[in-house]
């Protein structure tokens, strides 16, 4: 006789303890104590940061709405946005902005083109030679800006300087409008190019060599590998360098302008950073200076975030 029956699913057995309940939460102070360590480790740095960077920033912000010439004997008066309007009314602002753009564009060959070129070329030379070249290119980075300015002033002298002797022209680099701007850019570039080369080397090292090998086997010529593979993969590094150039060019040129041309001749090397410094800090007008500082900070933040967003969109990450 046939039995009836059915196939039933086999259930998973679990050692369930009926009275398990949620684990007892530790008392609040114990939880607090457990969350504390990272903050404790951060404390020294944060204290320093707040005391020496953000407190001054806040004070500057506050001061930017006041008029004061820094002297304890003179009154501090509130002027609202007056300082800002004065700053933005500054007659040379437009020209200075334009010159800043020129500086940034002029720096790009040193922070981007040459480093990438060097990075790519130094892979071709074998063995230690590449390292030696890199070391030599990096050397200017180690020269203090003041010392560098002094040497260059010397090299660029129109009668006694080496540069004019080599170029064979009587250009007075530091006292003719166009050449002065070029000189400032070149000297800054000379300082910074080693650092950029290093960053590019780091970037290139981070690219898996298999890609180039694969592209080679796939039939791409050396130039194609560079154009289609290496450069796109280097794009995050390049984005970083562009960001750095845009944000820091004006700061890098500052000590050189201050030592070599003081913004001259007739303002041809006065970029926005130097102009505001001149207005803000040479005229003993603390409010104006503070407004300039705040404007810088805000400008930098906006620029930086914009560029970061843009570069995230445009560059390819290799992971």
């Amino acid at each position, binding site marked *: 006789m046939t039995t009836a029956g059915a196939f039933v699913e086999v259930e998973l057995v679990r050692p369930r303890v009926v009275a398990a309940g949620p684990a007892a939460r530790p008392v609040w102070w114990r939880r607090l104590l457990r969350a504390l360590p990272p903050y404790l480790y951060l404390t020294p740095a944060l204290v320093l940061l707040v005391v020496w960077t953000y407190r001054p920033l806040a*004070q500057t912000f506050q*001061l930017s709405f006041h008029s*004061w*010439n*820094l*002297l*304890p*004997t*003179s009154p*501090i008066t509130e002027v609202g946005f007056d300082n800002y309007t004065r700053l933005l009314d500054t*007659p040379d602002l437009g020209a200075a902005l334009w010159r800043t753009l020129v500086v940034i564009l002029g720096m790009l060959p040193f922070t981007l083109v040459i480093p990438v070129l060097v990075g790519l070329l130094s892979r071709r030379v074998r063995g230690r030679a590449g390292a030696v070249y890199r070391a030599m290119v990096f050397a200017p980075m180690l020269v203090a800006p*003041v010392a560098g300015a002094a040497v260059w*002033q010397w090299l660029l*002298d*129109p*009668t*006694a300087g080496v540069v004019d002797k080599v170029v064979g022209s009587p250009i*007075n680099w*530091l*006292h*003719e*409008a166009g050449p002065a701007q070029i000189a400032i850019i070149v000297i800054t570039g000379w300082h910074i190019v080693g650092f950029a080369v290093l960053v590019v080397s780091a970037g290139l090292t981070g690219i898996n060599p298999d890609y180039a090998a694969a592209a080679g086997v796939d039939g791409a010529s050396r130039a194609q590998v560079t154009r289609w593979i290496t450069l796109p993969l280097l794009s995050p590094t390049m984005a970083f360098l562009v960001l750095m150039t845009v944000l820091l060019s004006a700061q890098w040129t500052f*000590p050189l302008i*201050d*030592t070599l*041309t*003081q*913004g*001259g*001749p*007739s*303002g*041809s090397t006065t970029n926005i950073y130097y102009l505001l410094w*001149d*207005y803000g*800090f*040479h*005229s*003993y*007008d*603390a409010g104006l200076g503070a407004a300039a500082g705040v404007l810088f900070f805000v400008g930098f933040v906006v620029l930086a975030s914009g560029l970061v967003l843009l570069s995230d969109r445009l560059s390819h990450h290799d992971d």
Partner: protein
Amino acid sequence: GLGGETAAPSSAPATVIPELAAGQQVSIVFESYNFGQAGAWTDTFTELIGKFTAAHPNIKVTPQKPQGNSANPATDTVSSLQSQLATGNPPDVAQLGFSELDFSVNQLKAAPLDDLVGRDAVQKNFDGAKYPYAKTARALGDWNGKTYGVPFVFSTPVLYYNADLFTQAGLDPAKPPTTWAEVEQAALALKSKTGKEGVYVDCLTKSSKDWCFQSIVRSNGGRVVSEDRKTLSFAEAPSVEAVTAMQAMVKSGAMPNRTQQQGTEGFARGDIGMIVESSALQGTFGKGLKTGLRSAVLPAFTGKPVVPTNSGASLFVFAKDPAKQRAGWELIKFLTSEEAYTTISTKIGYLPLRTELVNDPAALKPWADKNPLIKPNLEQLAKMEPWVSFPGDDYVQVRDGMMSAVESVVFQGADPSTLKGKQDELAKLVPGGGR
């Protein structure tokens, strides 16, 4: 707030500060840009301070240079003082340029010496033990009739020239040019005959400031700012004319396009035949040229009198504490004494403000005889007019703006009419609209 709370009594004490009691220990800080330069400058001043403390064992002097990052510490003096004032700890005695007089008195609140130690004592110091101050120099540190600063070092623009190059170029070193036209001629001769540069006028750039430019404009009958210091006038005919003349020299090749530093160095190196420069640089030129350095008075515009103006610095007291004020006054007295000037002139080459010293065989006569170069400077002292500072808090911007405009006309070939535009623009920064 930025630490501006340190309240200070703004009213001057009615009575003079007391003398220091014997054995009363005071220590003061003396800020001078002379400490910013290595070599003779620092050494001489250290020596003087040494002598002073030897003479006043109860006063301790701490020397310091202006803080700041300019290559030229002299440009940092005011900002240094200002930031120290902001902390409430200014130096007790400071050496500030004449150009900062207005600001020093009205903003930095230098102590009026007449109130501190009495007008008589101040004047007595000017009269000196034996040799008084040159008449034109006495009032350089006065404001509204009160003496705030004691003029300390100063100089006038002088035409230096290189006799060796003159000879080479077939010019007579004994007959230096006396007018700008002659200067230009000589320069062109120098240039074509020796291959060197002709002349550099160190009065026409932003970095050379305006004191010497004022000389040139005044010599052409103009002024950069009206006599009452209320209106800018550097774009008026006489000064535009002067500037145009300078520009013409650059255009003709008589004057090379140089920065201030390149100009002075080029001359010191023997690469430039002539230079219009402060007499304070004589030492440098002497060291560089070894032979052939000569000097002459500032060239004139044909048919017009030369009006030299001065540069230099005074000593101010910023101390609030009476004892320190008194000690500071003692230091000033010492530094402007006959003895100190003898040392300063021989060691550094600055002209003594007690001009008669150069005639005293016991003091500076031997030195002066050895240095005929100081003659034009001494000569000019008689005709000298004080250099005029720009008014207001933004005087630096006004000054720099004017000099930038001049620089771009002279060296960058801008049209002289641009001065007008600049003047209008800068006028806004002058209290009262500058018109």
